[in-house]
Structures are given as C-alpha cells and as structure tokens.
C-alpha cells in the first residue's frame, strides 16, 4: 500500500513536472506523441499483419501440397502393391510356391532357379526403376532377385529380417522401414520394404510373403518439386519420428525427437525462426513435414520493408522539423513578450514589438503594448502632479524672506534710528520695502538678470549697513541684463550662504557677483574671500549636489534648493558648481543657457 502510494505520488510528481516543462518542450513532445507514435504503431501493426498473413497463407497452402504429395506417395505404394499381384498370373510360380517338401535338393534348386528368374525378369528388369529387389519367403524357402548386393542377418532358410512366413499378415499389406528389418544394401542406400502376404486364393492358404524393396527416389520425385527454395527442408517420418526420407540424404534414418511436441501433425505452425507444415498420410500414417525459415518467406518483402522504413524515417524527420518549427513559432513570440515584460518590469518602457501577426500572440502583444502606453501615461501624469507640487513647495520656500534677515535688518534700522541717521534709515526702509515687494510679486518664476541683480544689490546693501566695514561687495554684469531671464531668487541663497559661512573675524569679506557670457551659456558666479572649505567638506558638498537628494533638509538648504531648481529647469547638465579652498574663499557658479525664456514648464 505504501509502495502504491509512493508510486502514485511519483506519478503526480511526474505529471506536475511535465506541466512545468516549457511550452516549447511540451508542444514538441505532444507533436511527437501524436505523429510519430501513431505512425510507428501503425507501421508496426501493418507490417506484422502482413508478415502473419504471409505465414498464414503459406501455412494454409503448404499442408495442401503436402496432402497431395502424401496421396501421390500412397498411390505409388499402392501401385507397387498391385504390381506384386502379377505373380498370381504366373501359375507355374504359384505351383512352386504351393509346394512344401522336396524329394531332392536339385528339385528344390530347380524351383528356386525358376522363381528367381521370374522375379528378375518381371520386377528387376521391368519398367520400374525404383524396385531394388524382390524377395519371396515361402515355406522355409527364400527366393530373391536384387539390383545390388545386400547384406542381411538371415540365411536363405530364414525370412527377410524379422518377418517371415510365420508372421500371420493375413491379408494385411504392410510397409516396413529399414529400422524394422535387418536388411541392408551394400551401398547403404535408404529404402522401404513393402510386405505383401501371398494368398492362395483358391485353396485359401498362405503362400508366404513377398517383399519388394523400393528405392526412395520415387518419394524424392514427388516431394522435391513442392519447394525447391534454398533452406526449405522436407522429410517423411512415421509416428515415432523415424525419418525414412529426408531432402538432405544424411538425415535419412535419424529420428525427429520433437515429434511429440508438435502441436499438430496435420496443419502448420511456427517457432521463432521456422515455419512447419505437416500432413499425415491416410494409410501409412506417415507424416510429411515441410520446414522453412521464416526469413526465407519474408525475403521478398524485405525490399518493401526497407522502403517503408525509409519512408517512415523521412516522415518522422519532417514531422520532427515541423514540430520544432511549430513549437518554436508559438513559443518564440511568447519568449520575446516575456523578455519585453522583464524590461518593462525594470522600468524601461521603450519596448518594441517587431512581430505584428494577427494571431493570439499578436493580439497579446498589442494589448500589452497598449497597456504599457497606458501605464506610461499614468506614470507621466503622476510625475507631473508631483512635480507641480514640488514646485509649489519650492516657491513657497523661496518666497519666504529669511526671518533672521528681517530681524537683523529691523534691529539695524532701530540702531540707525537711535543714531538718528535718518537718511540711512530712509534708504534702508526703502530697500527693504523694495525687497519685500520683489518677494511678494511672485507671479513670475523667471525674471530678468537685471531684476534679480537689483534684488541682490538690495540685499547686500542692507547687509553692508549692518556689517559696515566688515563686508564689501561688487557686482559685475557683462551681459544685457534686461534681455536674459533666469529663475527668480536663484542668486540670493548663494549670497546668503557666503554671508553665513565665509566671515573670518578681523578680515573684510568681499563678495563678488559676476555675470558673464560663455558661449551659449550665461555664467553667474558668487565668490568670496572668506573661510573656504576643507577638501573633505567640498567633496561632501559636491556629492550632495550630484545626488540631488531631498530638498527639505535643514543643512545646506539654500544651495541644494538652487541646485535642485537648476536641474529641474535646465536638466542634469546644469548643476551648481562649487569650488573652494580653505582660508582662501569659495566660488559658486550657476550656468544657464542663453535666451532661456519662460516656457512655463
């Protein structure tokens, strides 16, 4: 039970694993299964049917031929028996045979001479070439006439072999085989012996027995023409398997040991290699056997078989190729689709479908492509929304005026009021008012360089009121400030940054703002001569700028804001460039393309 379960599980597992095969493999296997296997099966069945029909045919007609041959043999034997009846037509011979005692030896010799001469002239020198010899045993006499010398264990006084006149054959005619007699011819030729009791029909007494020795050539003449194919063998045997005739002469006299195992003696059967046909004769019960190798029978069909196999191979090859093509044709676009999907999965929406078929795969590709376009649109939409939000955020940030600056400026104004320097106060308040207006008039994102520089100048002026001699500044403009537009508040954070970090105690800080044209770009630099940065610090800053990290961080907020906006407006190539050396100063450079007009992106 456990074993069965295990097998069952195994089966499921196997079936699962077939399911897990790739489509291409599955299709291929399926194609093979539905083409090659049926063809192979069909071919095999057809061929084996053909072969077995040949065998059946041969198995049917061979026994018929054998039956005819058997009939002929028996008829021939009957003729020999009838031939022996000739002796009844010779009253002189019958008279001698009726005698049973002699007065003198010479009288007996005389009779022997007469009978022997008669046998010789009637049978041996007659027309029948198959008679090897004739014997008559009668009343302790043996008359004989033979074609060749014979050896036998009997003297003239005895009977031929083990049969003599004492045997009561009555009217029964018999055929004796060599193994039933002790008779032997000098050239050991095979023979059969027909024994016929001689009856004195008038007196109803036995006259003795007549034996006619027959050469097997008469059987040979009948049997051999049945099948002259090479490999075919035929033999004639009695029920005990003694082979009295065989197409190969050296087998004559041997025994067929398998006779008891044959499934029929009247019909045909086969083994792995041989086809047997058999027929039993009616009177003698002799079995005429025909045996032929199966290969011999099908030899003529081998050509057909070879052609069939070749054709089959060709069909299989074509089927394999077609199966492969078909499987590939279905699986390849799917594979292609899968690859494209993987790319999309990784974020690459620029996928191309080169296949434009109208089948299911093509439709799938189409739908997929549509879907990607949809997704792309959605992403873009979402991206833009986010962008707008960010911009709004930035705008909110940039529109703030630093509270520290306000506080410091108001304090400076207060101090100036205390000092009662009214002009300065008026100036400062005017400047501050202009600055506030600038920052509040936030309709436009882009402003002319001129407007921005006015704002910077205002800022620096107010700071210089505060720091007095500790701060100096210079603004140089080498371009037409009314023509070029730049993002609003793009310079202020850099200047703020310089004032915040660059002050060195006891040293006047000089801030230089330089606007110039370099090729197709406008370079705007903010330099100071202040504390500068260590190399590590500088690297850190640069890294921050390239990473384009979150804008909302407290530290270095100003410059990161500037950098972010630059990249947003002009692209990756237009990052903020920072250069600094410890104790020497820092320069920050903004580059923007020439004639950048407000595009409303």
């Amino acid at each position: 039970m456990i074993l069965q379960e295990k097998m069952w599980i195994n089966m499921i597992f196997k079936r699962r694993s077939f399911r897990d095969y790739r489509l291409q493999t599955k299709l291929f296997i399926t194609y093979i299964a539905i083409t090659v296997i049926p063809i192979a099966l069909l071919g095999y069945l057809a061929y084996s049917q053909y072969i077995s029909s040949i065998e059946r045919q041969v198995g049917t007609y061979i026994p018929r031929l054998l039956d005819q041959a058997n009939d002929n043999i028996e008829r021939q034997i009957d003729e020999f028996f009838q031939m022996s009846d000739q002796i009844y037509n010779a009253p002189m011979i019958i008279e001698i045979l009726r005698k049973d005692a002699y007065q003198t030896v010479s009288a007996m010799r005389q009779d022997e001479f007469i009978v022997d001469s008669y046998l010789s002239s009637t049978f041996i020198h007659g027309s029948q070439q198959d008679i090897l010899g004739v014997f008559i045993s009668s009343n302790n006499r043996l008359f004989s006439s033979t074609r060749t010398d014979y050896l036998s264990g009997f003297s003239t006084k005895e009977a031929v072999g083990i049969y003599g006149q004492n045997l009561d054959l009555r009217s029964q005619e018999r055929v004796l085989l060599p193994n039933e007699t002790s008779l032997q011819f000098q050239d050991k030729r095979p023979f059969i012996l027909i024994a016929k009791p001689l009856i004195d029909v008038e007196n109803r007494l036995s006259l003795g027995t007549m034996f006619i020795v027959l050469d097997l050539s008469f059987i040979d003449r009948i049997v051999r023409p049945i099948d002259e194919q090479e490999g075919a063998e035929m033999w004639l045997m009695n029920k005990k398997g003694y082979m009295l005739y065989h197409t190969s002469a050296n087998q004559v006299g041997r025994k067929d040991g398998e006779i008891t195992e044959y499934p029929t003696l009247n019909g045909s059967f086969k083994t792995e290699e041989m086809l047997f046909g058999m027929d039993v004769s009616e009177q003698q019960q002799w079995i005429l056997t025909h045996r032929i190798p199966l290969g011999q029978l099908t030899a003529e069909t081998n050509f057909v078989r070879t052609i069939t196999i070749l054709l089959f191979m060709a069909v299989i090859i074509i089927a394999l190729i077609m199966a492969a093509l078909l499987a590939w044709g279905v699986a390849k676009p799917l594979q292609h689709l899968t690859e494209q999907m993987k790319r999309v999965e990784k974020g690459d929406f620029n996928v191309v479908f080169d296949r434009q078929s109208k089948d299911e795969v093509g439709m799938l590709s189409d739908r997929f492509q549509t879907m990607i376009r949809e997704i792309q649109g959605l992403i873009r939409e979402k991206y833009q929304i986010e962008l707008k939000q960010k911009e709004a955020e930035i705008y909110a940030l940039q529109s703030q005026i630093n509270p520290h600056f306000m506080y410091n400026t108001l304090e400076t104004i207060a101090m100036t009021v205390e000092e009662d320097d009214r002009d300065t106060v008026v100036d400062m308040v005017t400047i501050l008012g202009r600055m506030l207006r600038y920052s509040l008039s936030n309709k436009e994102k882009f402003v002319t360089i001129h407007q921005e520089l006015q704002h910077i100048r205002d800022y620096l002026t107010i700071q210089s009121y505060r720091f007095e001699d500790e701060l100096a500044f210079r603004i140089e403009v080498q371009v037409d400030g009314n023509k070029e537009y730049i993002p609003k508040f793009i310079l202020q954070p850099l200047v703020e940054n310089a004032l915040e970090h660059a002050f060195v105690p006891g040293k006047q800080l000089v801030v230089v703002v330089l606007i110039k044209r370099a090729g197709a770009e406008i370079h705007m630099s903010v330099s100071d001569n202040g504390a500068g940065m260590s190399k590590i610090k500088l690297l850190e800053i640069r890294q921050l700028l390239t990473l384009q990290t979150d804008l909302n961080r407290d530290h270095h907020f100003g410059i990161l804001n500037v950098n972010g906006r630059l990249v947003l407006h002009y692209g990756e190539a237009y990052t903020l460039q920072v250069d600094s050396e410890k104790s020497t100063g820092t320069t920050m450079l903004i580059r923007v393309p020439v004639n950048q007009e407000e595009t409303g992106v």
Partner: protein
Amino acid sequence: MPLKKRLCTMWVFLFVSGCSNGDSYELLVSNGSSSTMHPEAQNEHQYTIGIVSKVDNIPYFNSVKEGVMEAAEQLKVDVLYEGPTAADAKGQKVIVEKFINQKVDVIAISANDPIQLAPVLKRAKAAGIIVITWDSDTEAEARNLFIDMVNPEVLGRHVMDTLAWNTGEQGSFAIMTGSFSASNHNEWLKWIQAQWKEYYPNMNLVEVVATNDDPHNAFVQAQILLKKYPDLAGIIGNSSVGPPAAAKAVEEAEKNHEIAVVGVSTPDLMRDYLKKGSAQVVTLWSPKKLGYLTVSMAKSLIDGEQPVDFQYMPGVGTIRMRGTDTIIMGEPIDFTRENVDQYDF
C-alpha cells in the same frame, strides 16, 4: 491506480507480439486430427449375413463354408450358414424365412429354383434385406446382385472341349446335370450343347439326366447310363456330384480310359479318380474363394459400395461385371492328374 492499469494495458498491447514465449510452437492452421481408422470403428454395428447353400453337407458346399468362415473371421461379420438336407426350393424357403425373422442384413443364396424362391426373396428385399444370389441365380427382380463363379458360356464351352479332347472328338456322350430347375446348371447345359453343335458334328449326345445333387442318386443314374449305352464314349457331369458318380461307375464297370469322364466337380472328390484314370479332367473354381467373395461382397454392399468392373477384391483378386448386377469371380480351373494335388477343396 486506474492510470497505472491503463499504462500496463498499453504496455501489454505494445509488446504482446514480442512476448510469445521463446521456443514454443505457435499453431497457424490445423486441419484436424488425421483421419485414422476411427470412422470405421464408429459405425461398427455387427453385420449379420445369412448364407443359404443348395444342400447341406456335400463337399462342394462344405468348401464354400470354409471360405465363408474365413471371411467372417477376417472381416469381422457374423455369418449364418445353412442349407436344406435335400436340394430343393422348399427347404431353402424355410431357411430364408427364418433369416428374415432374424433380421439379418444380407441373405446370400444359391437358389435351387429361381421361380419358386423368387416370392420369398422379394419379401426379404421388401423387409430391407439385401439379397444376393451366388452360385445359382434367381429372377433378377428377386435379388440385388448375382455372384457368378465363372462366365457360364466360357465354362459350358470349355467343359465340352475337355470332353472332345478326351474322346478324339468322336462318339456318343451323356450329360448328368444337377437339377433341371437350377439356373446355373441349365445355363451351362445350354452352352455345352451350343459348343457341341457348333464344333463337334461327329459326337452324339444321347441323354441328359438329373442327379438332384444327390451322390447316391447320381451313382445310380451313372450306372443306368452305362448299361443303357454300352458304346458310350464320355460322360459330362454338370454339377459337382456328377463326375465322381460317373467315375465311380466307370471304375466299377472296369472301363477306365475307355469312357472319358469330365465336368464340374471338386479336386477332393475327383483326386483318386483322376489318378486312377477313371476321370480325365474336371473343371471348377475355388468354392472357398466363392464363399469368401460372397461374404466380402455382402459386407461391401451393406457399406453401400457397389461393385465395379475389374475391381480388386482383397483376398480374391480382380472381379468382372456382366451387366449391372452380375459379378463374375474369375476363370475356371482345370484339374488333371498332374495338378490336382495342389488343390485342397
């Protein structure tokens, strides 16, 4: 499990042809067991053949009986052999009626009188019994087949010839026939006379007498003839009792070699007379063979085999047919002083 089963079945289906076990034999065509002697054994219902002789206990019919019994033994049939004490139709009729009551398969009769016996034989036929006549025939309608020993013309003419040889074709002669009613005797008589008239003008038939197949009566008749015709040159005995009676009478009259005795008789009866010279030639067939042939023919008729011309009968030889219902067993044999010892009947 079902799947496994299915797979197994498939596997078996695929390999079943290859799986035939090794060296054993696969039967293709069988024509049944050979036709041995069984059919005969099957319809072995014991045949009974009733045989009626002309008269009981004379050597000729005793010889016939020997052949009959030999055949009965060899062919494995039951035979009832009977003859009347006197050679007349009345006795035979009684026997035939008895056989009809016993429901024999065949009645074979040597008819003493063709006309008187015809009704009873017809009755036997009507009862489904095959009726054969042998030795002496009856009316053709009363029997199925007649087995004649020899061609009566051949025999009659030959007997006349043997007499002529022994009398130098001269002188008067007498004929002792069996009975005037027996058809075979009359037939032979007819041909003897035909031959005489045709070829032997110098010979003279003085009288034809009937012996009624009684040896004593025959002897008396012979003696009367010798007395009546002192210059008689020869006597023909037309039935088996004739020649021995004639020879005996010649011997007693001490006229050996003077009066030729020929005719139809058995060697056993004639052996002494032939050797002593009181008879010269007798002609006959083998009555044993006749008996044997009668039984074997009766058997083949029961088996439904009709005889044909030149048919070979085992133990008998080749037979001839005359017409469609008469068989002729063979040629007559002459017995003389020289060869009579060869024969034993």
